[in-house]
Every structure is written in structure tokens, then in C-alpha cells.
């Protein structure tokens, strides 16, 4: 495995470059996935059957907390990657850990939000609107959950193996994933929650 030291660590081998390009293409597919979910949501959001409308069930407080937490986590993972570029392993691990903690808080609030929907009579089976809402949120939440595990594994590997081309590559790709989830959330926040509450 040739290592090109002129490049940042995460780009320093051929395989690393392949991994990063491959992951960008994967994100392209993810964009289509969420675009399809959004299309489904916009098509069905007015079709509430006998169930509640968006405005009746959305609550601003948990959504704001979720947004704040996730945006911050996107910032902290950026700091983590910055630390990684500087070769400061401990700082990087700390920022990654903060990111994952924020992710966990996000997930906790989202679980609370789902329980709230259940209590006000909006379950997955209630209407086309609730199904589309929960599938979209759930797909995003599922991605975050997977990210928590993935990120933890990467932290363990960085601690055990140090900053190698492999671990740096994984960490960088994970940061792309995390930023992507943040962007998706901004769309969810604007076009599902804000639009629904107006």
C-alpha cells in the first residue's frame, strides 16, 4: 500500500481515494432516497384521512432542540476533522465523542417526539400523512442511530490504532455522512416542520 505524504492522511492511499469517491457517489444515492421520501411526504401531507393534520401534532420545542443539537454536532465533527488534520489525536477523539453525544441527545428527543405523536393519536397506521411523516423521520433517525454505532467503532479504532491512513479515511468519510444527515435535517426542519406549522 503506497502512502502519498503530499496528500492529507485520509487521501493518502489509492484505496483511500477510492473510498472517498465511492462514498460521495453513495451520498448521491442517499440524496435520491431522501428526495423520494420528501416527494412522498409532500404528496401525502394533506391526505390525513380521519387523523390529525400536521399543524395539530407538530410542537416547536422538541424540534428546535433537535435542530440545535444536530447543527452543533455538525460543527463539532468539523472541529474533529480539523484536529485530525493537525494530527491531534486526543482532540479529535474528544470532538468525535461530543458529536456522538449530541447525536444521542437528538435521538432521545426524537423518541420523545414519536411518543408524543402516539399520545395525540397519530400512529403509523392513522393516515397516509402520519405514515409518510414517520417513514421520513424514521429513515433519518435510523441513519443517525447507525451513525452512532459507526462513530463509536471509529473512535475505538483511532484510540487503539492511532491516526493511520485507514482510520483517518474512515473518520473523514464518517464526517461526510454526519454532515449529510445534518443537511437532510435542515430540509426536514424547513419543509416538514416549519411548513407544517404555518
Amino acid at each position, binding site marked *: 500500500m503506497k502512502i502519498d505524504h503530499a496528500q492529507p492522511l485520509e487521501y493518502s492511499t489509492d484505496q483511500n481515494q477510492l473510498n472517498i469517491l465511492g462514498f460521495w457517489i453513495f451520498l448521491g444515492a442517499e440524496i435520491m432516497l431522501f428526495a423520494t421520501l420528501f416527494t412522498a411526504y409532500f*404528496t401525502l401531507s*394533506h391526505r*390525513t*384521512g380521519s387523523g390529525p393534520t400536521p399543524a395539530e401534532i407538530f410542537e416547536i420545542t422538541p424540534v428546535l432542540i433537535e435542530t440545535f443539537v444536530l447543527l452543533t454536532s455538525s460543527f463539532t465533527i468539523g472541529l474533529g476533522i480539523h484536529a485530525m488534520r493537525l494530527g491531534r489525536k486526543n482532540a479529535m477523539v474528544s470532538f468525535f465523542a461530543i458529536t456522538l453525544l449530541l447525536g444521542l441527545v437528538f435521538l432521545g428527543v426524537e423518541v420523545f417526539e414519536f411518543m408524543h405523536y402516539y399520545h395525540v393519536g397519530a400512529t403509523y397506521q392513522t393516515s397516509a400523512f402520519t405514515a409518510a411523516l414517520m417513514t421520513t423521520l424514521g429513515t433519518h433517525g435510523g441513519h443517525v442511530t447507525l451513525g452512532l454505532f459507526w462513530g463509536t467503532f471509529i473512535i475505538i479504532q483511532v484510540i487503539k490504532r492511532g491516526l493511520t491512513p485507514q482510520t483517518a479515511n474512515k473518520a473523514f468519510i464518517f464526517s461526510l455522512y454526519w454532515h449529510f444527515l445534518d443537511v437532510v435535517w435542515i430540509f426536514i426542519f424547513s419543509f416538514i416542520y416549519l411548513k407544517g406549522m404555518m
Partner: protein
Amino acid sequence: MKKKWAFLTSMMALVLLLSGCEPLLVLDPKGPQAERQASDIMLSIGIMAVIVVVVMAILAYVLIKYRASNQSDDYEPPHIEGNHIVEAICVGVPVLIVAYLSFVSVKSNYIVESAPVGYEDQEPLVVYASSSDWKWHFSYPEEGIETVNYLYIPTDRPLEFKLYSYGPITSFWIPQLGGQKYAMADMVTTLHLAADEPGEYMGRNANFSGKGFAENTFNVTAMSQADFDEWVEEVHETAEPITENEFEKLLEPGHLGQMTFTGTHLEFSPAPEHEHHAESDTEVDSESETHDHSQHEGHAEHTDHSSH
């Protein structure tokens, strides 16, 4: 123009010959919409046949002329990158053909989506045609009549079919009067037809809808307005009124013969219509249309028809 028609007629003859001389239903139109569609079909068959012949001719020429056995052993085929003029022709001619066909297609779209040509001034006969597994229910709200699996229509009068379904998506199709359209559970689609000649026509559901799909047909009888009025009167004298109970029973999956009732099921089980219907509004594209559609639907309306 004359040449074109001569060509079309000969193509028509060829198709008829292939089919054993019986006219094919779609190419034997009995109403203005089907006529328009048949002429589009014949026109496109004609143009397309020319393309196929040209391609085959070039292919045959090339194969005969440049086959290896026809050339000396030391012949080395040249390296040719391409030629802008040739490629421009290969793009240009198809573009012209497609542009012409697009023009015809767009024009026909507006024709088949509005009242039949020559019938614009007349008040149409509105028939609600709804499907259930695996039957057709025809409601004549003005006449106060409902039939199952058969359709009586007057000739020389525009017909407006309002289509919807109590179940899977079906497609209402009377080939000799015009092309089909879907009947779906949560919206009403409109199909404009008219019959020029009295006669018996085949009608069916063309969209696969499960086990009984093959037999999901109905008979269409076109007759003069006078005969039609007579039939309406006769039904009112002889048929039983349709009741909600009776109708619920009719909806159960299975096949039924032909049936006749007075009154329509629209009174107790209305069609899933909306005050503003996307159908008639051709100015919206599909995206905003579904959007419109769902907005107008509202949930009040929806609970309504989800209960049947």
C-alpha cells in the same frame, strides 16, 4: 395530401390482410374520438414503416457489399472517425419526424380530452361508470337509471363518462368508440366519447384487476335518441329501484349478468368528486396537479368515501 391518403389506405389494407380480413376493432372506429386515434395510428404506422424500410435497405446494402467473402484478403478497412454532415443528417431527419409527430400528438391530446369534434354544442349525456371486482356499474343520473355490465347510449350525442372504482385500478375501454381511461378509487376521471352509428360494441376493463379480470367486460349498444328515450321509459316502468343494501351486495367480488335498476347508487354512495377537478384543468402539470388534487380533497371529503 392525396399520396399520403393513398399510402395510408394501402397500409390499412395491409394490416387488414394480415389479420385475416376482419377489420381490427381499433382500426374500425364508430365515433369521432376513435376515428382520430385510428388516423393517428395509421399515420404513425406509415411514417414508421418508411423508417424501418430505410434502415433495412441500408443494412442489406452494407451486408451484401462489405461482407468479407466479397473482398480481397488484403483489404484493410479504413479508419473513419465520423462525418459531421452525415451525423447532422442522422440527427436532423429524426428530429423533423419526431417534431411532426409531436405536433400531431399534442393536437390529438387536446382533441381526445375535450368534447368530440362536431358535437361541441350539444349537451352531453353524463354517465357515471364505476367498476367493482369484476363488474361495471353504469349510473345515468339525469335519467335516474342504473345498469350493471351493459351500457345503452344514444348516437349523435356527446357522452361524458365519469370513471371511478370500488377497488383496484381498472380501465374503461370501448375500442370502437375511443381509447381507454383509468378508473380509480380516490378520484373521478372523465372520458369524452360519442357514437356515430347504432350498433353493438365490445367494452371491457383493460387494466389487470385480479382473478376475474378476463371476464370483466360489458356490452355497449348504441341507438338513436328516440330508441334511447324509449328504453329509459321502459326501465322506469319495469325495473326495481336500487337500494343501499342491494348495492353493497353487488359490490362483493364475483361476476354478475346484466342488471337494471331505477335510481342510482350516487345518491347514497357518491362518486369521489371534488368541486374543482384537476381533470378539466389542463393548465396544470402532473406535479402540481396531484398537489392540487390532494389539497382539494381535504380530510372531510376523504372520510366520506373511505367509509364505503
